[in-house]
């Protein structure tokens, strides 16, 4: 289940919705991304997330299908917010459920690495010096490339 929305989400409720009525699930891995206060205590630094709406939905559906082909998954939930967010607010949720622990953990890491480098979102930070577009990080590209090297790998 994929949602792109302004509203906040409740991790506990999303987890219950994903696992209800499926007692074949042995583990659920999740990742929640939060807005960090980049100004280290000298004042709040909010941000605004812009996105390319149609492409986000299409690309997320494709990467979910890829994760399901690589790992034995019972369910996937991806929620990504857009709009203005304050430090401490939740930005993104990835939940993966599987009969097997490693499949849940690996597919969750795969999906969040992918989101960081391929999902069409851009962060505009508010700083004391004005607003600034966040720059992409080489370490994020490296994290995604890892999964490309492991192309054929499928653990369950």
């Amino acid at each position, binding site marked *: 289940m994929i949602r792109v929305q302004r509203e906040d989400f409740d991790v506990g409720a999303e987890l219950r919705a994903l696992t209800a009525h499926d007692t074949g699930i042995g583990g659920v891995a999740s990742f929640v991304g939060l807005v960090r206060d980049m100004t280290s205590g000298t004042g709040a630094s909010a941000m605004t997330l812009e996105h390319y709406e149609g492409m986000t939905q299409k690309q997320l559906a494709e990467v979910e299908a890829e994760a399901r082909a690589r790992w034995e998954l019972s369910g996937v939930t991806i929620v990504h917010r857009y709009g203005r967010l304050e430090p401490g607010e939740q930005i993104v949720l990835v939940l993966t459920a599987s009969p097997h622990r490693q499949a849940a953990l690996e597919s969750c890491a795969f999906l969040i690495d992918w989101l*960081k480098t391929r*999902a*069409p979102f851009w962060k505009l930070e508010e700083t004391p010096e004005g607003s600034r*577009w966040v720059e992409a990080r080489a370490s994020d590209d490296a994290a995604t490339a890892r999964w490309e090297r492991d192309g054929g790998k499928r653990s369950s």
Partner: protein
Amino acid sequence: MKLLYFAWLRQKIGVETEQVALPDDVTDVAGLIVWLKGRGDNYAEALKNDKVIKVAVNQAYARPGTALKGSDEVALFPPVTGG
């Protein structure tokens, strides 16, 4: 062709979306970027460092050699920073 711009590319060009008629000799993504650079200083400045520009054709990532046709939706944007 429908063009969309995002993040600082949108700000530098000053346009969010526009409908353009491509010249016949612009047939792929690389050609589109060259042509756009000639449309004004705002385009030239925004697309100056074209190595960092990402292009999506019909909402899928494209390469410089990806072919274009008039009915395509083409988006240009900087590297993504979501998640």
